[in-house]
């Protein structure tokens, strides 16, 4: 009884170790590569230290290779990095070196951890770390360190509203480094306001933006104007 099981396990591990990090990433890209464009409904929630921002609904648009836009009627604070930037960076397998650094359980999934180092110094990306669900070929988590925007952590989950066939999550949680963030002072700033209320508390120095996707509409040939026109 034990022997077939052990054999099977060995076969899996052999097959796992047989795939290189770049091969794993290519598989992920292949899935996502099927998406030329998409639009979806989005619900944004914010947990930012010193900033109280109510949730808001909007629409999200994406067009290959990395056009991304969120349209809302109100103000939203978004991470400076385009969340699909990392995936677009991985499309050219010659532009980076990928290293397998271990495994970690995320939820119920054993994720493979790959570190990506871009070749050449002209890239904005300094270091990328990806937790990948090898079975579904989707990115569960990515940690990107860029020259322009510091470090950002993206957690993806693939629930009922996701389009896992296209590696599109139904929830993306972005954790932003806010250590350098300061509340701007202006001439007409409040005087005497010793409010006892403080804005939502989160881990000191970090802010969290949660994007919940639904009603994906894929490959409908979105015009470029969608990414440039003013929101009315």
């Amino acid at each position, binding site marked *: 009884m034990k022997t077939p099981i052990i054999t099977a396990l060995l076969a899996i591990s052999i097959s796992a170790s047989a795939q290189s990090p770049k091969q794993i990433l290519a598989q992920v890209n292949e899935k996502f590569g099927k998406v030329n464009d998409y639009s979806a409904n989005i619900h944004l929630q914010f947990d930012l*230290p*010193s*900033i*109280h*921002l*109510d949730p*808001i609904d909007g629409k999200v648009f994406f067009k290959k290779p990395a056009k991304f836009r*969120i*349209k*809302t*009627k*109100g*103000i*939203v*604070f*978004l*991470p*400076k990095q385009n969340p699909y930037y990392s995936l677009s960076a991985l499309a050219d397998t010659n532009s980076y070196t990928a290293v397998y650094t271990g495994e970690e359980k995320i939820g119920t999934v054993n994720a493979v951890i790959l570190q990506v180092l871009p070749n050449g110094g002209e890239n904005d990306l300094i270091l990328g770390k990806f937790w990948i669900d090898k079975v579904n070929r989707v990115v569960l988590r990515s940690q990107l360190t860029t020259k322009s*925007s510091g470090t950002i952590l993206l957690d993806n989950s693939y629930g009922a509203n996701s389009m896992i066939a296209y590696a599109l999550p139904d929830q993306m949680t972005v954790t*932003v*480094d*806010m250590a*350098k*963030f*300061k*509340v*701007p*002072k*202006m001439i*007409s*700033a*409040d*005087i*005497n*306001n*010793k*409010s*006892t*209320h*403080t*804005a939502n508390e989160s881990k000191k120095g970090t802010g969290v933006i949660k994007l919940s996707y639904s009603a994906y509409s894929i490959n409908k040939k979105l015009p470029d104007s969608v990414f440039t026109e003013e*929101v009315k």
Partner: protein
Amino acid sequence: MESLLTLVQLELYKIVTKPRSFIGFAAITAIVLLVQFALYIDGKTYWEFVTQSLEQTFTINGTIFNGNLVCFIILQMLLVQMPLMIALVTGDLISGESATGTIRLIATKPVSRAQILLAKYIAGAIYTVLIILWLGLIAYGLSLLIFGHGDLIVLKSDGMVILRDADVAWRFVAAFFVAFLSLMVVGTFSLMLSCFTDNSIGPIIITMAVIILFTIIGTFDIPIFDRIKPFLFTTHMIVWRNIFDNPIPKEQILQSVIILILHIAGFLGISFYHFTRKDIQN
């Protein structure tokens, strides 16, 4: 009751036909239009300077610079001017009559001094409502017309609050109501002073001096001043800003509203006590 209504009508007529009553409206209109003009020309640049630090960490989507924000900026700027506009009229209600000598005539009419004072007070309150409505119209209505709708960013000393557009209008209404109470404190205070003097300049200057002094005390973070601050009406006059917090500190606002009402009652009580008893010598 009928005689009180008649008196209120007459007092309103006197206020409305007095040139100085329009100084407040004219000044507010000029200030608001000037600020709107300046912000229209250069507001975005000015605001971008403020949001620079924000944009180091985030990409900001949405119309930050909009009518709601402009209105909020204007209201902040009028903190000192508005009380002066009110005191110009209410500080003159009794002392103006003393200065011109008409107090002798009205105090010999078959209406009680209490009725005279109450009628003047009500007329002063109506004037305050009118000036607030006017302010609402041009600061809020006109700003929305020129700059459009949008979410409101409110900067606080310890952070910022962003209020959704749909959630802003009622807050402005509530803020105007609280502002009305605050201005009634100023109006009642200057009316009280007006009962003690025979010239109009005194009550107006003393009112402004007190407001400025109390505001300065409220600004300093000195322990001894911290003990005095809760008792100063200026501390509670700016509570309208808390309406733009999220969540709204209801208890704090209610407390301030009660304190403002108590101030009004106190000043009015002193006014009635003195005016109904004083000898009219001039």
